[in-house]
């Protein structure tokens, strides 16, 4: 078993359970994270019903890196068997993660990959995610097309990874990026920035943007009455899908899913591994990263079908994807 | 007095503040070993001229020579290096620092940037000892904040003296001092004069000027209008040089009014107050006498609800809650506070607002003001009190002390008060304005108001009061009525009580 020296708290023998799983999340001010946590809770409750999971310990707070280190220490002290963390930094938490794995605790990082080798990163490839919408946009505007990009926060690792990948796509496709603006991953700021860009770059054919800013950008484009001529990359979130759905049929966009359910997927993995299964090392990229496949993006092709399915959820609902306990078997060594 | 070559010569001094020409071609020449009076009405530029010499105001133009050497004085630090020290009208003490640290502030003794308390104490000790008669038992480590205003003023003077100046500027340094404290200051000034220093002395107290000064320069509207030898000039002439013809206010006692008691106080205690009883009738001007700091100011503040106090207060037979100045004001009580700068005026606000603020609610309709009515109300006070202003929209900070004080009066007159509390109302006010303020006080009483007045000047009490209550340690210990009120009797009464003689010095006992 990978779990060799199980903490005394979870008791009776090898691979038996019930287990305790800890979650560390260092940012609560977003709908995305809220959905991520509730996905994990939903997944956990079925294990709890089966008696396999004793407790799910949530360390969920707005905090900085130091605070998150504290969170992880708390989880270690609470005697958890596995930790699922959405880390605030790709490297600054390595040491405390190492402490955890040294004690035989399984650690999974979701949403943001970390460099600690003993941690298993689970998630989609952010570069691939960005490239998917960038490729779609490049195809729409064609060679020589002119676009602007509304980014998150310059210098932020997630933004650099995503925009870097998108930039490569645009270069290869001969698409010209006229300028970029920071929207701070904030819908209203994205809307304001797009308004400014529309006035001063009348020649643009398209906009590449990410996450919640897509809705703001689209609203600005609609407000300028140019939704027929400017192509906007979208977002797989209900708020955006609704506005998209309200547009005429020749309006096109794309929404690539960045599933908050990755945490729940990690939980299924954790439960399987705690019960004695081992991860299939050959599937790990860079030694410790498990790359989840992207879902089929939302496009005009499948918009109606997708929308009818998720319409009932709230506006902040993000299209999701959770691998089931059976699905995660593909990453595990099968005897 | 020896005559030497002029130690200080200022000429062609110009200074403009916004629209106000504070000094225009002012000049002053003073010799070493001379006490030189700098005289003039409020706002005539005395302080400004002093500040130019002390480096704290940069003139628009000026020629300054010290002992014949032309100098530029760019900052107080530069002035200090040239041996010029100043006591300003506004205290320049840091309340939270100790007396010792204040005394050496700006010229701290020490090595490599480290303070040496021992060196400082050594430097300060003789000064504290010298000042002890006026300062009392004040130690190096006492916080300045805990000292009485007069003591603070003495410390301020000590701070200037410590620099062993060859030019010392005393700008109304005696305004908040009592006679014994003034005596000590004069003694020290005379010693400095013997040592060859020049002392520039600014005061609105005529007796001080005639007693101390050798020569005097007189300013009016920023212009030097005269230079005169003080011993050779009569006081009346000095006044005339300063303010033109002022009709001196004669002492006039109204007949002791016999109406009903308007203000009745029983057992007022709290802070320095230890049970004050007092009765005052409408139309009566009651003075508060005694040594300084016996609770006179506290009594006025307490009656106005501005400090915590217990006891019974009735106005016209109705009890008053001592809750806040607001409740006091709503019962027709008004206070002209002792510190005009921090308590009386809203410096950056226009004169009109300063006049209006206490009575504003009464002129409003559902909280909305009529600009016409506001202007009219303010203008009525400017006219009634003959306040000299440029425009009602100018900030009150542009007014001279006397005029600012009249604005504070006007603010309360607009509320038509029935009880008027005055705390040192003519401090720093020139002779002319002082006379006008006495007339205002008298006419208030004539219109039926009760006036309670505290003053640092005994002559003021003699001039305006119908009755004086002598306070000691927070209680009324003696009363002087009518012709009993003379400067001698006031001093006697204060001192005899201070020495423990509890017997009534004269007149009736306090109620």
């Amino acid at each position, binding site marked *: 078993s990978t779990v060799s020296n199980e903490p005394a708290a979870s008791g009776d023998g090898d691979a038996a359970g019930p287990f305790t799983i800890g979650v560390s999340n260092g940012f609560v*001010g*977003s*709908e995305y*994270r*809220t959905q991520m946590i509730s996905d994990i809770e939903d997944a956990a409750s079925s294990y709890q019903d089966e008696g396999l999971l004793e407790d799910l310990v949530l360390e969920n707070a707005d905090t900085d890196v130091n605070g998150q280190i504290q969170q992880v220490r708390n989880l270690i002290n609470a005697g958890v068997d596995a930790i699922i963390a959405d880390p605030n930094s790709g490297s600054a938490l390595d040491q405390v993660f190492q402490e955890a794995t040294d004690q035989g605790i399984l650690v999974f990082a979701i949403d943001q990959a970390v460099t600690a080798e003993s941690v298993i990163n689970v998630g989609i490839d952010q570069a691939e995610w960005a490239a998917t919408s960038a490729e779609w946009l490049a195809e729409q505007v064609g060679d020589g097309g002119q676009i602007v990009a509304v980014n998150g926060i*310059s210098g932020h690792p997630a933004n650099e990874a995503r925009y870097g990948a998108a930039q490569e796509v645009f270069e290869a496709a001969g698409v010209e990026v006229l*300028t*970029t603006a*920071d929207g*701070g991953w*904030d*819908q*209203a*700021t994205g*809307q*304001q920035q797009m*308004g*400014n*860009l529309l*006035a*001063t*770059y*009348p020649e643009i054919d398209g906009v590449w943007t990410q996450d*919640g800013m897509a*809705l*703001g950008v689209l609203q600005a484009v609609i407000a*300028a009455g140019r939704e027929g001529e400017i192509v906007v990359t979208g977002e797989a979130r209900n*708020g955006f899908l609704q506005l998209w759905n309200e547009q005429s049929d020749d309006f096109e966009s794309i929404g690539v899913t960045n599933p908050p359910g990755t945490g729940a997927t990690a939980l299924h993995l954790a439960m399987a591994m705690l019960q004695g299964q081992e991860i299939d090392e050959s599937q790990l990229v860079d030694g410790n990263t498990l790359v989840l496949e992207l879902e089929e993006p939302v496009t005009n092709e499948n918009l109606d079908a997708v929308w009818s399915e998720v319409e009932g959820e*709230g*506006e*902040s609902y993000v299209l999701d994807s959770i691998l089931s306990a059976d699905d995660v078997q593909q990453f595990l060594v099968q005897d | 007095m020896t005559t030497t070559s002029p130690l200080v010569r200022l000429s062609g001094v110009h200074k403009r503040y*916004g629209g106000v020409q504070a000094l225009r071609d002012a000049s002053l020449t003073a010799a070493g070993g001379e006490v030189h009076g700098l005289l003039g009405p409020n706002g005539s530029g005395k302080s400004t001229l002093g500040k130019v010499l002390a480096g704290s105001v940069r003139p628009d133009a000026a020629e300054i020579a010290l002992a014949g050497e032309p100098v530029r004085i760019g900052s107080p630090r530069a002035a200090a290096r040239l041996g010029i020290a100043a006591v300003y009208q506004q205290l320049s003490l840091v309340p939270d620092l100790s007396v010792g640290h204040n005394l050496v502030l700006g010229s701290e003794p020490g090595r490599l940037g480290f303070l040496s308390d021992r060196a400082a104490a050594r430097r300060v000790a003789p000064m504290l000892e010298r000042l002890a008669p006026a300062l009392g038992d004040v130690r190096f480590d006492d916080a300045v904040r805990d000292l009485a205003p007069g003591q603070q003023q003495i410390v301020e003077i000590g701070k200037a003296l410590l620099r062993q100046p060859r030019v010392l500027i005393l700008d109304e340094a005696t305004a908040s001092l009592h006679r014994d404290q003034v005596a000590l200051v004069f003694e020290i000034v005379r010693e400095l004069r013997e040592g060859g220093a020049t002392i520039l002395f600014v005061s609105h107290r005529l007796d001080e000027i005639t007693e101390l000064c050798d020569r005097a320069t007189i300013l009016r509207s920023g212009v030097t209008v005269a230079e005169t030898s003080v011993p050779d000039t009569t006081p009346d002439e000095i006044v005339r040089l300063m303010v033109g013809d002022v009709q001196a206010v004669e002492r006039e006692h109204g007949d002791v009014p016999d109406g009903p008691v308007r203000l009745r106080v029983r057992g007022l205690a709290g802070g320095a107050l230890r049970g004050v009883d007092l009765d005052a009738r409408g139309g009566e001007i009651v003075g508060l006498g005694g040594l300084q700091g016996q609770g006179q100011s506290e009594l006025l503040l307490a009656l*106005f609800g*501005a400090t915590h106090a217990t006891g019974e207060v009735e106005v016209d037979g109705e009890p008053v809650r001592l809750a*806040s*100045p*607001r409740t*006091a*004001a709503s019962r027709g009580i008004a*206070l002209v*506070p002792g510190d005009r700068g*921090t*308590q*009386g*005026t*809203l*410096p*950056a*606000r226009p004169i009109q*607002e300063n006049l*209006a*603020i*206490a009575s*504003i609610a009464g002129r*409003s309709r559902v*909280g*909305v*003001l009529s*600009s016409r009515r506001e202007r009219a109300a303010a203008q009525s006070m400017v006219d009634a009190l003959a306040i000299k202003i440029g425009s009602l929209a100018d900030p009150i900070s542009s007014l001279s002390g006397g005029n600012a004080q009249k604005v504070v009066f006007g603010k309360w007159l607009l*509320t038509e008060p029935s009880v008027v509390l005055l705390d040192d109302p003519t401090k720093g006010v020139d002779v002319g304005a002082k006379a006008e303020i006495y007339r205002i006080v008298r006419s208030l009483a004539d219109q039926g108001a009760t006036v309670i007045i505290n003053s640092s000047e005994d002559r003021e009490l003699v001039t305006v009061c119908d009755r004086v209550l002598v306070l000691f340690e927070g209680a009324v210990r003696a009363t002087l009525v009518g012709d009993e009120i003379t400067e001698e009797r006031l001093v006697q009464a204060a001192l005899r009580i201070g020495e423990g003689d509890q017997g009534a010095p004269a007149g009736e006992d306090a109620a």
Partner: protein
Amino acid sequence: MTRVVAILKDPVVVAALIAVLLIAIGGILRPGFASPDQIVDMLRVASFLGIIAIGQTIVVLSGGEGIDLSVGTVATLGAILASRTMAGDDALIVPGVLLALGVAALIGLANGLGIVLLRIPPFVMTLGMLGVVGGLILVVTGGRADGRAAPALVSLVNGRDVLGLPGILLVWIVLGVVVTLVLRRTVFGARLYAIGTSREAARLSGVPVRRVTVSAYVLSSLFAALGGIAMVGYSQQVFLNLADDLTLPSIAAVVIGGTLVAGGVGGYLGSAVGAIVLTVLTSLLTTLAMPEWARIVVQGVVLIALLAVYGRQRRLRS
């Protein structure tokens, strides 16, 4: 001549000139920036900040180290409460707005009482309140702010129904005029300036210092909530940190507008112009193609330069 010079020294005039200058520069560098549509758009965006800055102006004028660091979150909370209540339905606008204003008033009351009764410095009181309101937002939303602005609100902000201008601009102008009148022509205004200049002198003039102070903080929260509601009309959907970032800009707008940080001197017109300057500056920097770091640096430098101009004037005047 001197009158012209005097007018040119008025901080409000300086700020307004700077706004015009920025637009002109933008227009030269990027045709389209000075187009009427873009200007209307910038004014629209400035109005949210401008409305929030009304309350901030009042609080700063009230003196006593007055500042309200909670306006951003209160605006967000107001937007969330209003938009969840109206849920895209015009009929529910009024209850939504009233609910938001009611809750905001309570928050402002708590700020004011903490400051006058418990004597907590405003900086810390409103900073603590920022935390408390942040918590409240999570309670109210459960971490998901699903709310939709009613169509009438959206068209008030995004439409151009009033003489070709967005209705929100009219609302802003009306609020600005009313506030200026309140400051200049009411008992409350006179007392606000009085306590801002000298609490002690005001108290001794019979001004109810505490009541006026508390009112200032209540008004601050109310205008913050109004600003938040306007903002949700713009973004149409609410989200968890909609207006959080407007706190520092609201203070900057007040200072740029020439209101003295120490209190007692200034007015709203300046803050409104300040809000416009900040918005135009941000927009201009967005549209110029330059690296993000350069944008940040330029923004900082322009702000400092702007205030240096006033500093020089303060010196000339005193």
